[in-house]
Each structure stands twice: as C-alpha cells, then as structure tokens.
C-alpha cells in the first residue's frame, strides 16, 4: 500500500504542505477563498515540527495495527481492508478523543468547528498523489509503496 | 605579430575572386583504371561520362589522365591556364627560377561549338632545380610554387603538376572538353572524369574538376558540410586553400594524410569517412584502439556531408562514399579493369557485362592498385574503345586475361578484419 514518507534532511519548513492540506479539506477547495472565508475552521491533517534548521512534516502513518482503531469506542475509526487507509467516519465519531490519547505520532487533532470529531490524514484517497506530497517544493515528502520494493527483496513483511 | 589585417594570409581580393567559384554542385564522376598498367584511349572514359550528360549543366567538365606522357615519365608535367599573355610571361619567369624547362607547348585542342573562348592552355615538362634546403622535400617546393602562382599571379592557374599525368578541364560538358582536348588520342592506364552542375552561372575553367596537385587528382560529387573544419585543419599544416572548393580541401587532406603523415592508403577511409562510434564500440579491442586514436587525432579531417570522390594518383585509383552514403557510387570489375561511376549506366556502356558490379557501402573505399611492372607484351590494338558483350572475344585480342581472380579486392569493410 502506498504511504507518505519524508526525507527529513530536505524539509525546508515552508509549511506549504499544511496550507495545501487545509485547502484540500476546505469546502471551496480554492486557496484564497478557503483561507479568507473558512480560515478559522480548516485544520491541516499534516503537521510541521521545527526547531532551528531541523524540521519535518508528519501525518498519520495508517498503521497496520492502528492503536487509534483499537481505542475507538464508537467504531468511527476504521482501517479499510484493501486500501489500508485509516479514516474517521464523522457521523459515528462522538469526540471522546481516545484516538488522540493513543496515537504515538500525535497526528490526530480535535476538530471543534462543528460537531466535535477527530481530524486526521485520509491520504487524499481521491487524488493521484496526496496534496502535501504534490506541493512539497523540495520533494521531501514522497508517496510510494516501500513494501512493493521490498516485497521482491525481503518478501511479504505483513504480520 | 598577430596583426589584425593579416588574419587570413592571402590577400583579400584573390580569396574573394576565387571563392565566388565555390559553387555547391551536384555532378557526375567516372573513373577507369587498368591494374596491369595497360594504357587505353581516353575515348572509353569520354563515352562513359557522356552517358551522365543529365548530371551536369555544361558549366564544368574535366579529365585526369595517368600514363599519357611516357616519354617524360620521371619529370613534372605542368598544365597551366592563362587569361592573357602577361600572366603567361610572369608565370614562365617564375617557372624558370625554380625549374629547368625540358619542353613546353600549347596543349593541342580543336574548335568545338560547345566550348566558348577558352583561355590559353600550355603544358610544360620540367625538372626541378632541387635548390630547396634539406628539410623541405621537392614536393613541398612544388606545392608552395603552385600556391604562389594560383594566388599571386592574376590570370594564371596551375591545373595539374604531376608526373606522367595531366588534367584537362574547362567550362563545358565533359564530352565536349574531351573532344576539345582530343583526349581520344591519348592513352593512359588511369582516367577519371567529372561533369559539373554548379547552381549559378559563373563558369570558370580553373574551378572545374578534377582538382590537381602533384600526382593527385580529385573529382567529387556532393558538398562537404565540414569544409570549414577541414580547411582550417589543413591550414594548420601549411596548406592554403586558395580556391576554397571542396575538391581542393580534399586533395590537400589526401596529400597531408598519405604523403606527409604517411598513413597507408588502405586506412584513409577510416579518417575521411570514419566509422560511427556505435560501430567502433562493437569492434574487437585492438581495432577499437586504432579507430579511437584516428578519430581523436584526425577528427577534423572527417569529411562530413554527402560526397562521392574518385582520387587519381600515380599508382592507384581510390573511390570513397560518405559514411552514410548520401551520394551514389557504383563499382565494377572486368579483368584488370576497375570502373567507378556515379551511375551504373556509364559502366554498362563501356563494359556490357563486368565480372562483378556492386554498390560500395557508406565509408567503404574501392581501391584499384596499379601493379608496378609494365606488361611487356606490346599491345598493338590498344584501342579497347568498346569491350563488347562477349568476354571471350576480349580474351582473344589479349587485352584481358581472365584467369587472374581479382575476386574480392572489392574494397573491404573494416568489420572484416
């Protein structure tokens, strides 16, 4: 399954990934409109951490043994069997934040704009390439299937 | 020092004057050599070249003939064109300085309707006084002398300067030039000819092919797109391109590579039409080294652009096509005879059924080497004007002995080594 990987040494801390993620998850999907009108409500699903010249963008890893799916009391957080993408069903989520409690990457956020729901990366399933990867000016973010490469090297790594 | 005004050595107007004649031309080439050094009449080559009448437009034609002056075999035969007596006088003074004139005469010609106001055409048989110093050879002296005459004496042009050979050329169809110079009465073992198709009007006797220097004669069909590079390459070795015509630079390249650099004639095609890198990469190791070295050193001697040339010299006729064969070239063998032509028809005209006829590949040379020894037999009926269909008839009259198998000296592909 294709996943997002980062090469820390090339992340320049410009945060364009966050901006385009916000646009992608805005209503209008238009950058100026999204920021000028919906600004307050759109949460980026990718997070850039930066100290001095070290920085990296991090988002949900869609773990194969996802703690958030385990901890979700409402069945909102599900891992799709074939795409492998972990998504939060906004109708079922009650905002109990258990997923935030267990996600070791700390990449799930509280979306308080409307009904309290958990907000996380959905791997831009409807896009060829996730918008954060598409818009990284330095190709620090990559979208590839490491298993596929390693599959022929190492054999199936799945549990 | 490196003053701006003598950037290009020759004075401006001559280069200007001659360069107008570097006319891109499509043309016809035709050559015959008898490897047994048996001499035959010029009629055969005239018949051949006339078939390709369409390939020329009457603004240039010429012949090179080897073996026509047996009596002056070891002396220099100069053919010189003069516009006027003054040019003749000046030139003859210069000749007198460096050479002893054994015999000189106006080259006999007949009036031909196709030939209009020909210049004065003289030939001189000379012995060089050998007053060059130890370093420069006799040939170098002659080359300098010719360049001096062609460049500095207005109205004089040395057409050929070889031994036991001569070049007859001018403005007109080749067959007319042949008849004008009565070449049917000459007998030689190697003839090349050329019909020119320059694309603008300025016909000039000196500009016709073949181009001669020492024993070399070159006829050429095509246009050398690497002319500038080749010209500068030879200029680095003292050759001054006065006419800046393709044939001139090809001749100087040949003289430089064969005479001065002493590269064997059988390797010359590896320089003038060097194989492509992709071919070189596929060759065995030692060949690859040779070709890489040739290409590294003589890259600027590579003739690029379409050409098919026939080179005459004292003891071989050499024909070569450009390496991607953008110009036609056909070769044929009949006993001791090797024919080279732009088209097959002229060969069939003079030799109906050759032993072998083939189209050499791009970059594949055809060499006819004339054997040293004279054929003792006196050939009474040397008038092999027409080799008719039945080869046996030829055998009877003793011109051609079929038993010797010339077989595969049809030129060679370097791949074959």
């Amino acid at each position, binding site marked *: 399954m294709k996943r997002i990987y980062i090469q820390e040494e090339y992340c320049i801390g410009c945060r364009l990934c966050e901006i385009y993620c916000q646009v992608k998850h805005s209503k209008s999907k238009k950058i100026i409109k999204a920021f000028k009108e919906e600004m307050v409500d759109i949460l980026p699903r990718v997070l850039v951490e930066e100290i001095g010249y070290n920085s990296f963008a991090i988002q949900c890893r869609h773990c*194969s043994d996802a703690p958030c799916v385990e901890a979700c009391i409402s069945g909102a957080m599900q891992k799709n069997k074939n795409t492998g993408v972990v998504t939060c069903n906004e109708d079922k989520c009650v905002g109990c934040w258990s997923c*935030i409690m267990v*996600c070791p990457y700390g990449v799930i956020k509280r979306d308080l704009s409307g009904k309290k729901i958990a907000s996380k990366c959905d791997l831009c399933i409807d896009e060829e390439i996730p918008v954060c990867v598409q818009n990284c000016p330095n190709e620090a973010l990559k979208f590839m299937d490491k298993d596929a490469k390693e599959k022929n090297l190492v054999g199936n790594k799945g549990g | 020092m490196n003053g701006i005004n003598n950037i290009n050595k020759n004075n401006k107007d001559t280069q200007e004057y001659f360069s107008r004649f570097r006319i891109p031309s499509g043309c016809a080439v035709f050559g015959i050599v008898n490897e047994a050094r048996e001499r035959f009449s010029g009629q055969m080559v005239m018949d051949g070249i006339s078939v390709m009448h369409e390939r020329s437009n009457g603004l240039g034609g010429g012949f090179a003939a080897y073996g026509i002056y047996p009596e002056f075999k070891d002396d220099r035969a100069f053919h010189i064109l003069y516009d006027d007596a003054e040019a003749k006088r000046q030139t003859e003074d210069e000749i007198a300085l460096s050479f002893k004139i054994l015999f000189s005469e106006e080259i006999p010609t007949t009036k031909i309707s196709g030939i209009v106001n020909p210049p004065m055409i003289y030939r001189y048989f000379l012995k060089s006084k050998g007053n060059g110093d130890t370093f420069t050879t006799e040939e170098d002296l002659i080359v300098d002398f010719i360049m001096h005459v062609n460049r500095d004496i207005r109205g004089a042009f040395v057409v050929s300067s070889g031994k036991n050979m001569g070049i007859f050329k001018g403005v007109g169809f080749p067959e007319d030039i042949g008849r004008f110079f009565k070449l049917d009465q000459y007998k030689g073992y190697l003839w090349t000819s050329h019909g020119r198709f320059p694309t603008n009007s300025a016909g000039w006797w000196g500009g016709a092919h073949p181009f001669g220097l020492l024993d070399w004669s070159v006829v050429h069909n095509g246009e050398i797109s690497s002319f500038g590079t080749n010209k500068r390459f030879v200029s680095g070795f003292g050759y001054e391109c006065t006419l800046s015509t393709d044939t001139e630079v090809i001749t100087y390249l040949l003289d430089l590579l064969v005479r001065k650099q002493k590269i064997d004639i059988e390797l010359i095609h590896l320089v003038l039409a060097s194989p492509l890198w992709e071919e070189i990469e596929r060759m065995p190791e030692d060949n690859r080294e040779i070709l890489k070295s040739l290409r590294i050193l003589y890259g600027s001697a590579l003739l690029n652009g379409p050409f098919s040339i026939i080179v005459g010299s004292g003891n071989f006729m050499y024909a070569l096509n450009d390496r991607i064969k953008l110009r036609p070239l056909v070769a044929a063998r009949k006993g001791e005879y090797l024919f080279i032509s732009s088209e097959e028809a002229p060969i069939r005209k003079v030799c109906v059924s050759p032993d072998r006829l083939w189209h050499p590949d791009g970059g594949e040379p055809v060499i006819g080497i004339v054997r040293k020894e004279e054929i003792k037999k006196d050939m009474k009926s040397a008038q092999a004007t027409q080799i008719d269909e039945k080869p046996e008839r030829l055998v009877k009259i003793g011109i051609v002995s079929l038993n010797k198998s010339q077989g595969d000296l049809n030129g060679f592909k370097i791949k074959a080594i």
Partner: protein
Amino acid sequence: MKSKNNNRKNNKTFEDNETIDYLIIGNSAAGLAAAESIRELDRAGEIIILTAENYLNYSKPMITYFLAGAVNLDMIHFKDEKFYTDNRLDIRLNTRVKSIDTNKMFLITDDGKRYEFRKLLIASGGRPIIPKIKVVGAGSFDFIDGTNYEKVGGIFTLTNLEDAIRVKNYIEKNDIKNISILGGGLIGLKAAEAFLEKGIDINIIELADRILATTFDREASGIIERKIKSAGSNIYRNNTIEEIYIESGKITGYKLKDGRKMECSLLIIAVGVNPDASFIESGSLDMVKGIIVDDHMRTSVKNIYAAGDVVEGPDMLSGGKRNIAIWPLAVRQGTAAGVNMAGRNKRYGGGFFMNSVELLGIPSISMGITNIGEEAEGIEVLRDFDADRNMYRKVIIKNNRIIGVILIGNIERAGIYSGLIRNEIDISSVKENISREDFGIIHLPTDYKKHLVVGEGIEV
C-alpha cells in the same frame, strides 16, 4: 494448528448438541475483537457468541453519550450487522451463562441449554458494585443492595445500555432537574458529563478527598471540581450516603455521612465495577477479583481464555496482574486471545491505565500511574500548572521512563506520551522538553524520533 473438524462444518448451521469450536461469552470489545481475529486465522471454525443483553452490540463507554443525546440507538453499535454475517459469527442474544464445567468443557445457560466447547473465551466484562445502604420509611425493606435496588424508583446504576435507557426515560417522565451521583470516580464523572451536557444539576458524593481520585491528583481534580461548582453543581467530598429515604416506592432523599439531609428524586450508584464472573464456580478457575490470565490470555485451565474487563492481566507498569477495565486494552486482549485460540501465537505485551474524558468543555487525559508525587522514592515529576486557563500538565518519571501523565485543558498530541510509556523509552536526554506545552516528536530522543518520523508506522 487447524482445528480438526473444519472440513465437515463449513457453513452448515450449527446444531446445538455438537461440540463448538470456539465459544465466546460476551459481545463487546474483547469478545468481538477475539471473534474477528479467530475468523481471520481459521476460515472454517464455528464461532458462537453468547450475550445476556438484548442488543446486537454496543460500546459501554458510549452509553453516557447516548444519555447526553449525542448518539441515538441505531448508531450506537460499533460493529454493524454485516460484521457478523461476513465473519459468520453466530450471535445468541438474551443468553446469560449460569455455570461452566471447566473439566468436561461445557457450560449451562439460564434457559438450561448445554453448550460443549473445544475452546472458550470468557469476555463477560464488568458488573456495577452496589453498596449496602440503610433505608428509612419504605416499610417493605430496611436497606438496599445489589438485589433489590432496582425495585426502588429513581435508583439506578449506569454501566449498560439498559440502565441508560431506563434513566433517560425516567428523567423525561419525571422531569428531573437534579440528580445525585454516589461515586466521583470514572463512571460517576462519565454520567456527570452526560447530565451536565443536558443542563441538569448534579450532586456528586465521593468517599475520597477528591473526584477521579484514582486517576487525578489534587491539582487536576481541583480544576474539574471548580468547573463543576461554577456550573452550579456541587461535590461532597469525604462523604457517602448513610440513609436513603423512600416514599411510595420512590427515592425522595438521603442523609449524608456528615449528617446533611438532601432531597433527591434520582440517584445514580457509581461506586465502581467488578469483573462479572459470578457464573464461575470458585476454584474452577484461578481468580481474585478478575480471572487471572497470562500474557497469552490463557486462564489456569487449558483451552479456556479470558479477556477484557473481566480479567486481571499483565500490567506493564506494576509488573503484576491487575484489572484495568478500559476499552483499548479489552480490544487488544481480545485480539491476542483470538489469535492464540486459533492456534497461532501472539503475546499480549501488557497494558496500563488510560482515560480520556471531557467535562464542561475541559478535555482531560490521564494515563499510567498518576497519583503519586515526588515524595515517592525514585520518582521525578514535571509540572506545568496554569489554574486560570484550566491548564495542567504533569509527567511522572521513574528511572528515566515515563510512568504517568495527566493532561488537563491541552490534550494535543497526548498519544506521544502513551507511545513513550508503551515503548518504555529512556527520556533522560530530553527531560527538559517533556512537559512543554508544544511538546512534539521533534523533542523526542533521536532514535525514537527517527523511527517515528521516517519509520513505517506500527507493524504487527
């Protein structure tokens, strides 16, 4: 090892008298997690799930959200109908287990039916504790306890969906404005969360000196208590109910230990939960309060497993066995049990206490061992307390490992701490950053950071 009889029974309906490959007691987090992982490894084995309740399935922590109106009945399930059909799980509702014969490997249900099994999973979860309280004025009985509290109108527990529905109806029917909750622990506060959400005032009666005593320390509880008080509800600490007044079958009030008399028309008993293992004959299985299991969820009897709120399983932090009745551990234990029951091998790496609750808009997360302070030996505590912004952050460290965290107000990225605890990461090199408000992965020790940033994500 594939179970022997899988070829015969492919998808035939099960007759009752045959031996069942996998029998699961309990239809909640642990039971269904086990069922799913068994089916994944054993395509053919027959699985039967018994539940005393009458609902397809629901998640216990969700009942307070139901009570608060945040979710309705048809959305409360966390596994839909398709889950059962896809995985060919035979669910038997209203089937309470009466007794289990752990030698002959069969059990009897209330309706007298007998189920023989090859492998059994006990995932019956927990049962509310009902303290014995003196009753005044009812006439028919002089105290209430676990057996008779349901007969009194207005007294409820709140541990299953049935309770929540009855409370919800009772509130609507009697237009209740004030509710008393006996017990200021997790369940009590969860209930309080629901009622506050509906705008009903609450009185919380807590035995200890503060609410959520097991998970919060004084400062943390202080923040929540102040908030609840400011919302017009009150909390009675170091207190309990001594007497209950009942008139015409309904509760009307009660008397506190400190003597105060209170009016009350609805009392929620939420003093705690015990493993629901009454149907297990003592001595047939190693038990204390819960069923003792090893790190493969095996009980003391071969082929009998247990998982979820009913067990006392390996506790990562204390090293011993403890009953940690929380949802994530129930799911993980269920999965482990399922894999082991299906003949494969999966170790349950032990768990630790975690809880996330949001009260009156203040989110709070606590995990691990939280209510010890510097005074304890070898303990180091990092604190960041901003009372007026209701922000509190406490990280408890023991020999360079985090063993407990409390976050009030700002729970951003709390999971990073749970990752640190779970992976037992040595944080000595980054101690100064641990309690920062913007604590992030970039502050983590380099190797662990590298793994998270560049790594694949958590593999099995």
